[in-house]
């Protein structure tokens, strides 16, 4: 297969290694060392995509990560990754790529009609067009916009690739491996500093890889690169990371790197990750990110075949690819002339060099003339022709007063353009440094340093190879000295060739066309034209931040690296304000798009969040239990038998627990051991209840408030000894309660002699509840008298259970006779399985969290977080009985006296009964007085818990209702989509109101 635009020789590709690849179904050939972009260009393919808004044909514009147009989908192992920049995709055998944003094909795209209708899509069109009617947004506008806009298609399957994460430290991080970065790494490494050098490209060398003419220390630039890398590789304390983008610069020199490990391989080792996230802490950083060339803003500057000049030179010198056979070079600076000369020397016809400047350097003109290249001074492109590829250009002569007159037409199949260079200050900007404007350079360069970093080379505003090398060496020395206090003076290499050059322009160029009809693109990826920026200014956007959001210029994935300076100049001119007064938008992380996989790393699937299991877990799985997640815990939800659904299983479990006995795993409850001479005093202050008079061996229900007076947790506390309490908390509140206790203890009452220890994981807890509970546990208990007199409700004792140490509580969250058996966690499984066998003798059942909820709701026991929402007081819950009235202070006491907490009209806990006993209300449903309240009527409250109650033989609900206690017997409504449900307000207790079943 011929590659018609491949040069005869030269470049860094491996001409001996031919690779087949596929683009939009067509099989093409390239070479090892190609990028997808260079291989496409070698085959004469410029058209690679359609633009975002107008669906205009677009070609490859650059040769780097700033590429706005050549975004393709790459198929790998059956999955497609969208929006890969063809300029960064390394070619491998069998690579499969597709173009994006076109239908049905790249060549014929229906969406291109948008280009004809472009007057309908002015700047701010989202804001203007889709405002009315509001209802259309969800049903009409959004689906259409989402279908038509956007670039690639997101992959449909879960990402099968692996990603890795590692933490690293170094003395000096060097970002970028062009001449400045290599020199900096050499200089820093020479001192013995631990150096990491990273570059987003596959090969180190940066601009030197495209530099054919220059020499360093008398050697070809590429030779110097090879020697330098070999020297760095030879040092143990240097780490070289190619294909690694420093995408985020965070506080304290914390830099995030994304290393692409296997994406460039056709058959990668499956053990390797696709990408690796380096979380790097560098003592010092050298940013050597280089500069990128600005496109020129002239009418129709976006046709395929139009590239920035340095990209043309890179494709030629590095990849051995000619961007065209007849190339027009349009420039405002010197560097593009070299591209013209290199192309001419490789046999490409350079039809003209059109320089905006009236007096470009004479030496360049002499070189051009020696090659027979036509030179036009004070000349601009005023338009281009060609549909899927540029076929010609209109030239215009710019008179000194700025007027443009036609200078004829040229035929060409490619245009190289250069508006000058923009230092890449993204990482510096991310480090929170503030750029400063250099009028003489027409560029923003790094200013003051906020972090331990320095820039070197082009991103520092230093151009010319010798100067760049010197700047790099100095930066490397400076960084190493700051990091490890050592210096080692290297002899700086000097270069000849690749001089700095002069010139450059910002903003849109003058032309003689109808300004209202032409499109001169500023931001290619977001399809923003010079006209759009001007319109935004006319419509009142005066800050660049507003202009950016109104036009979307600079909001594409390159964050405006290509477009910002031109947009800023256009806005500055339109506003008649200095450019620096218009402002520069902030560069943010990530520098280039970074995959979610890289961020997620190994935190996916089972590793996303820890799973906490109780001792009965495996047993419950074997029993076929359904599980629910409670925080990180897996809790048995219910135990269905013989094809029961949840409703049937829960009804059976509830009934059996009340008739004979049920077994429940309560191990997830938070447990805190509070110990010390001041333990009781500490609990006095932490809980509303009094504790000092609680005798050892007794338990009490504790209610915890915050200092605002609202309920935040509850649980039973057992006094094990004078100076020792076994505190339980809610499952979800365990960590927070422990942290709150620590906080008060350490910072408010450090004088208290108390230690607290989280013991949640130390104890396994089996709750045995029901009339037969005592009979079930009795055979296994030693050392505790279980009789009602010796061990009444709300008792705790230590003894043994199945021969293992045990804290036995007689407590109940069901209203039945109940015991909670706390044993060392390691014995939990044995104890559970013993009890599970034992309850069978009494026709008992294991039950899950759903039955637990129903049983407690029948008794009107609250669950913090269900009946409460952080704005509920003890009085709201009818729980003033839990408050130690004689206590001078406790956390929340003062809060309870706040005006709003004692005001009339607070929402109070009540029970609700539906008229129809079969109707179970929805938890969270709003409650109103009227069945059909007017829109905007505030709710009287909401349903907090709602179940079918086997004990009550009907549905029951708990609710928080305004002035609820005064509404007993009244009817309220629960409006639902298919009509309001009338409910009667009742006491919030539905079973055994006297509590007779507890005291047996």
């Amino acid at each position, binding site marked *: 297969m011929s590659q018609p635009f491949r040069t005869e020789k030269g470049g860094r590709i491996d001409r001996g290694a031919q690779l087949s690849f596929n683009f939009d179904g067509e099989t093409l050939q390239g070479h090892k060392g190609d990028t997808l972009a260079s291989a496409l260009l070698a085959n004469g393919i410029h058209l690679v995509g359609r633009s975002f808004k107008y669906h205009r044909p677009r070609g490859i514009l650059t040769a780097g990560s700033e590429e706005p147009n050549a975004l393709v989908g790459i198929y790998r192992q059956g999955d497609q990754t969208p929006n890969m920049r063809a300029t960064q995709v390394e070619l491998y055998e069998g690579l499969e790529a597709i173009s994006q944003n076109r239908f049905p094909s790249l060549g014929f795209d229906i969406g291109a009609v948008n280009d004809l209708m472009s007057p309908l899509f002015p700047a701010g069109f989202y804001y203007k067009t889709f405002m009315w009617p509001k209802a259309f947004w969800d049903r009409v506008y959004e689906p259409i916009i989402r279908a038509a806009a956007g670039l690639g298609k997101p992959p449909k399957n879960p990402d099968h690739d692996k990603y890795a994460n590692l933490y690293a430290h170094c003395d000096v991080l060097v970002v970028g491996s062009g001449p400045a970065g290599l020199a900096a790494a050499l200089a820093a490494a020479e001192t013995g500093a631990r150096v990491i050098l990273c570059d987003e490209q596959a090969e180190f060398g940066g601009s030197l890889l495209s530099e054919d003419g220059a020499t360093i220390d008398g050697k070809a630039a590429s030779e110097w690169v090879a020697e330098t890398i070999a020297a760095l590789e030879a040092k143990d304390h240097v780490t070289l990371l190619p294909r690694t983008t420093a995408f985020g610069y*965070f*506080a*304290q020199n*914390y830099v995030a790197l994304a290393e692409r490990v296997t994406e460039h391989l056709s058959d990668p080792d499956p053990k390797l990750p696709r990408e690796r996230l380096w*979380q790097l*802490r560098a003592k010092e950083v050298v940013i050597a990110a280089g500069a990128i060339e600005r496109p020129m803003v002239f009418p129709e500057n976006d046709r395929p075949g139009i590239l920035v000049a340095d990209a043309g030179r890179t494709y030629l010198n590095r990849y051995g690819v000619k961007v065209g056979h007849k190339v027009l070079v349009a420039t405002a600076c010197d560097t593009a002339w070299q591209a013209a000369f290199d192309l001419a020397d490789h046999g490409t016809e350079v039809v003209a060099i059109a320089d905006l400047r009236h007096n470009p350097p004479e030496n360049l003109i002499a070189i051009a003339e020696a090659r027979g290249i036509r030179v036009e001074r004070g000349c601009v492109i005023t338009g281009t022709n060609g549909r899927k590829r540029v076929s010609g250009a209109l030239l215009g002569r710019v008179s000194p007063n700025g007027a443009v007159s036609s200078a004829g037409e040229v035929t060409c199949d490619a245009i190289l353009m250069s508006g000058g260079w923009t230092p890449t200050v993204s990482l510096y900007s991310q480090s*929170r440094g503030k750029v400063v404007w250099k009028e003489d350079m027409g560029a923003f360069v790094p200013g003051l340093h*906020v972090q331990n970093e320095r820039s070197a080379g082009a991103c520092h505003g230093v151009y010319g190879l010798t100067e760049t090398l010197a700047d790099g060496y100095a930066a490397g020395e400076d960084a190493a000295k700051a990091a490890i206090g050592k210096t080692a003076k290297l002899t700086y290499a000097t270069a000849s060739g690749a001089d700095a050059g002069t010139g450059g322009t910002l903003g849109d160029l003058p032309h003689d066309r109808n300004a209202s009809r032409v499109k001169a693109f500023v931001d290619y990826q977001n399809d923003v034209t010079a006209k759009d920026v001007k319109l935004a200014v006319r419509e009142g956007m005066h800050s660049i931040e507003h202009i950016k959001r109104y036009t979307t210029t600079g909001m594409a994935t390159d964050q405006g690296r290509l477009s910002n300076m031109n947009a800023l100049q256009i806005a500055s001119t339109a506003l008649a304000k200095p450019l620096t007064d218009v402002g520069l938008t902030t560069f943010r992380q990530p520098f280039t798009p970074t995959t979610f996989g890289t961020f997620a790393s190994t935190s996916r699937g089972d590793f996303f969040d820890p799973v906490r299991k109780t001792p009965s877990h495996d047993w419950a799985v074997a029993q076929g239990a359904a599980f629910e997640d409670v925080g990180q815990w897996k809790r048995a939800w219910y135990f269905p038998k013989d094809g029961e659904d949840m409703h049937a299983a829960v009804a059976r479990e509830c009934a059996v627990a009340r008739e004979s006995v049920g077994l429940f795993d309560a191990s997830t409850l938070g447990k805190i051991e509070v110990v010390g001479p001041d333990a009781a005093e500490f609990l006095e202050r932490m809980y509303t209840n009094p504790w000092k008079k609680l005798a050892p061996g007794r338990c009490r229900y504790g209610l915890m408030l915050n*200092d*605002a007076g609202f309920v935040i947790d509850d649980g039973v506390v057992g006094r094990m000894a004078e100076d020792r309490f076994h505190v339980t908390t809610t499952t979800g509140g365990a960590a927070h309660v422990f*942290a709150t206790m*620590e*906080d008060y203890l*350490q*910072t*408010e009452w*450090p004088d208290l002699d108390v230690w607290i220890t989280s013991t949640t994981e130390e104890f396994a807890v089996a709750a045995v509840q029901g009339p037969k509970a005592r009979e079930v546990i009795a055979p296994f208990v030693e050392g505790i008298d279980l009789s009602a007199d010796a061990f009444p409700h709300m008792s705790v004792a230590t003894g043994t259970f199945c021969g293992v140490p045990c804290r036995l509580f007689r407590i109940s969250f069901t209203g039945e006779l109940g015991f909670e058996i706390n044993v060392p966690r390691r014995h939990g499984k044995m104890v559970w399985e013993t009890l599970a066998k034992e309850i069978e003798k009494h026709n008992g059942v294991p039950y899950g969290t759903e039955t637990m909820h129903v049983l407690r709701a029948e008794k009107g026991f609250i669950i913090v977080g269900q009946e409460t929402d952080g704005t509920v007081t003890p009085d709201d819950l009818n729980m003033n009985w839990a408050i130690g009235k004689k206590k*001078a*202070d406790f956390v929340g*006491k*003062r*809060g309870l*006296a*706040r*005006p709003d907490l004692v005001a009339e009209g607070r929402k109070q806990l009540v029970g609700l009964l539906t008229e129809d006993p079969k109707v179970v209300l929805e938890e969270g449903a709003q409650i109103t007085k009227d069945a059909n309240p007017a829109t905007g009527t505030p709710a009287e409250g909401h349903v907090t818990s709602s179940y079918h109650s086997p004990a009550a033989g009907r549905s029951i609900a708990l609710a928080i209702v305004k002035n609820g206690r005064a509404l007993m017997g009244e009817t309220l409504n629960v409006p639902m989509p298919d009509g309001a449900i009338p409910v009667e307000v009742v006491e919030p207790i539905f079973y055994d109101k006297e509590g007779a079943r507890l005291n047996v």
Partner: protein
Amino acid sequence: MLLIHCPYCGVERPEIEFSCRGEAHIARPADPSATTDEEWAEYLYLRTNTKGVYAERWRHIHGCGRFFNAVRETVSDKFLKVYKAGEPKPDLDQIAKEAGK
């Protein structure tokens, strides 16, 4: 991710070992019942939320577990001082001046 020096452990550790607990030196009134509603509301809810040099509480929750105080420049996120709970509030203006803020 910030690096934070724990004054109890005497070492610098990554931010993920710590939790921030809001403004420092907000003491719970010794006799809450003696406070007015306004004073109590201020204790509960009002914080200076300074843009600049700020004293705040941190806890080395996944380390020694101790609460301590730190002076942080909230714009740059730079820690200017850490000190143990119970030590007096430093002169923030002086710290700001020394840090050149």
